[in-house]
């Protein structure tokens, strides 16, 4: 009995030790950046955290030419050249400048060291290379509903950069497989030059499976930078909660593997993010989610991102995604149109009725994609209500006279009249 009690005490103590060390890894960056004050000042030293065996990356620092790290940087520079010319790169200077500005606001010291590449890829992911190339996938931008949420991800990735988190694993890869393999992995992981699903998931796994401690540290930096730049820190956790809901509804393994391998969104992690955000806000509350510029820069691109999402045909997950975007409220006409599209294409029982409802809702909005009318035409055609279908096709042509399928639709309509 006594032995059992001692064992229990030991487990509790070790557990408590772990918990406090975990907590420390989240908190330390916040003390460093000065967003929170360390109540146990003097007691917590950077050296005490065992993962801190590597020196922080200093602003403007490049590794000495004769070092092993320089070889890794060179491989990454090669991979970065491929990002620049990739067919799926979104080479939009306005968007790039906007994301670069967010980066500079978050970490002005490292502003010149981090270069952003946005890649058309409908999954939630971002990848920081040790040389400062940050690849953001369009699926991530689609899911953020304000600037603070984008800042949460960029801040987190800057944390990985400053703490050189990918270095150790890359060092092992270079030693065992050579620099060329690192270039291939880094391009595949960035979603560029993908050969096949397996190679691509393996690449992500090997480049992005940070340890939980590294994730905790990067989360700490993410929050610290967000708060310092005036972003509402709760948005870090808010973004994750939305994505977790999607994972639960998804039957696409790629979506969950990507997230769980690269940034496992555990309960503990979410609790820590929320708890720290509460403490930051309790200390001083002048934080905002910053929506205005976000809408100006990202809403015009959302139609294309949603189209990519639709092509994945992971309809149940997309339903969850659309629900929270509709709740957010920006450009609902566009969102209801895509809700209609997902039901029309899923084509299960009751989907036809749901598609009709969604298109009708889209039409009630001030602004909706003209394609809504085309879709209504197609749907009524399928139902055998050709007159109604024709009416919607005509409306579509009126609203979008230069549409690419004009001649085809006119031909269909003339055939019907004969």
């Amino acid at each position, binding site marked *: 009995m006594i032995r059992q009690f001692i064992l229990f005490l030991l487990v509790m103590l070790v557990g408590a030790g772990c918990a406090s060390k975990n907590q420390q890894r989240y908190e330390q960056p916040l003390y460093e950046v000065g967003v929170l004050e360390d109540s146990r000042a003097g007691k917590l030293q950077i050296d005490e955290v065992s993962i801190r065996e590597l020196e922080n990356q200093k602003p403007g620092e490049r590794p000495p030419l004769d070092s092993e790290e320089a070889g890794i940087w060179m491989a990454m520079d090669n991979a970065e050249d491929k990002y620049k010319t*990739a*067919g*799926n790169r979104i080479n939009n200077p306005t968007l790039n400048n906007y994301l670069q500005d967010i980066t500079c606001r978050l970490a002005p010291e490292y502003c010149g060291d981090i270069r952003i590449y946005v890649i*058309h890829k409908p999954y939630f992911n971002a990848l920081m290379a040790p040389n400062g190339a940050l690849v953001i996938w369009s699926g991530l931008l689609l899911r953020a509903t304000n600037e603070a949420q984008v800042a949460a991800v960029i801040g987190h990735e800057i944390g990985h950069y400053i703490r050189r988190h990918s270095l150790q694993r890359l060092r092992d890869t270079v030693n065992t497989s050579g620099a060329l393999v690192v270039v291939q992995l880094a391009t595949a992981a960035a979603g560029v*030059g993908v050969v096949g699903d397996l190679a691509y998931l393996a690449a992500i796994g090997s480049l992005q499976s940070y340890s939980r401690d590294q994730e905790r540290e990067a989360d700490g930096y993410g929050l610290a930078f967000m708060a310092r730049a005036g972003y509402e820190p709760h948005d870090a956790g808010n973004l994750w909660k939305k994505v977790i809901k999607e994972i639960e509804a998804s039957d696409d393994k790629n979506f969950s593997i990507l997230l769980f391998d690269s940034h496992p969104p555990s309960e503990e992690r979410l609790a820590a993010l929320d708890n720290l955000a509460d403490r930051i806000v309790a200390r001083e509350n002048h934080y905002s989610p910053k929506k205005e510029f976000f809408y100006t820069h990202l809403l015009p691109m959302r139609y294309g991102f949603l189209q990519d999402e639709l092509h994945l045909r992971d309809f149940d997950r997309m339903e969850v995604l659309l629900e929270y975007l509709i709740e957010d409220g920006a450009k609902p006409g566009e969102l209801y149109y895509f809700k209609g599209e997902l039901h029309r294409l899923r084509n299960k029982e009751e989907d036809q009725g749901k598609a009709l409802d969604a298109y009708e809702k889209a039409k009630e909005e001030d602004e909706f994609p003209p394609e809504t009318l085309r879709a209504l035409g197609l749907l009524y*055609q399928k139902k055998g209500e050709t007159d109604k279908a024709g009416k919607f096709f005509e409306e579509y042509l009126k609203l979008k006279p230069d549409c*690419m*399928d004009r001649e085809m639709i006119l031909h269909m309509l003339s055939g019907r009249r004969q």
Partner: protein
Amino acid sequence: MKNRLLLITLLGVVFALTGCAYYSLVKSGSRIAVGQGLWVESEIAWSRSKQRGAVVWTVDGPNLQQLVFFPGIDDGKPLFQPVAGKDSKKMPTYRAGMTFLEVMDLLEATMARENVHQFEKRNMQPVIIGGEDGFRFDFSYVSEEGLDYLGFATGAVKDNKLYLVMYAGTTLHYYEKYTAEVGHIIKSIEFF
């Protein structure tokens, strides 16, 4: 005997893994059957292979230009046969009764899964193919490596089966090189 079987199996696995395609010759000036439903005539010689159910013709190599025939897609089937390991349930499929607008959307959705980017359609027109009502539209896209391509697709439905022909080549030189010849092939289409 056992060893030979093993060797053949191994070779098969290696070819499957490396994605090697076998090519055969389409002779110039020949009238040839494509799949189970089309006759076409070609004035020049092509190299022909089969990839995931589709028939692919090329002169300079499929990455430079390719003429892809989908000769008779049945109701409920995707354009390309699914690749092992990929989620076949999520392949967009042809449904009998689809309008040509929906068929065009189906082709776009299929291309999106083939690592094709910035796919843009233009200029959809009604046409007659092999005596059947059909459609045609032009498109452009960018490959994974950033190379620009131009192309067009044309198709018709006969006996509830979808017949599609797609031609694409690099914007620089190779698309144009055989557009006239491909035009001739499409004009020559006859259904069995």
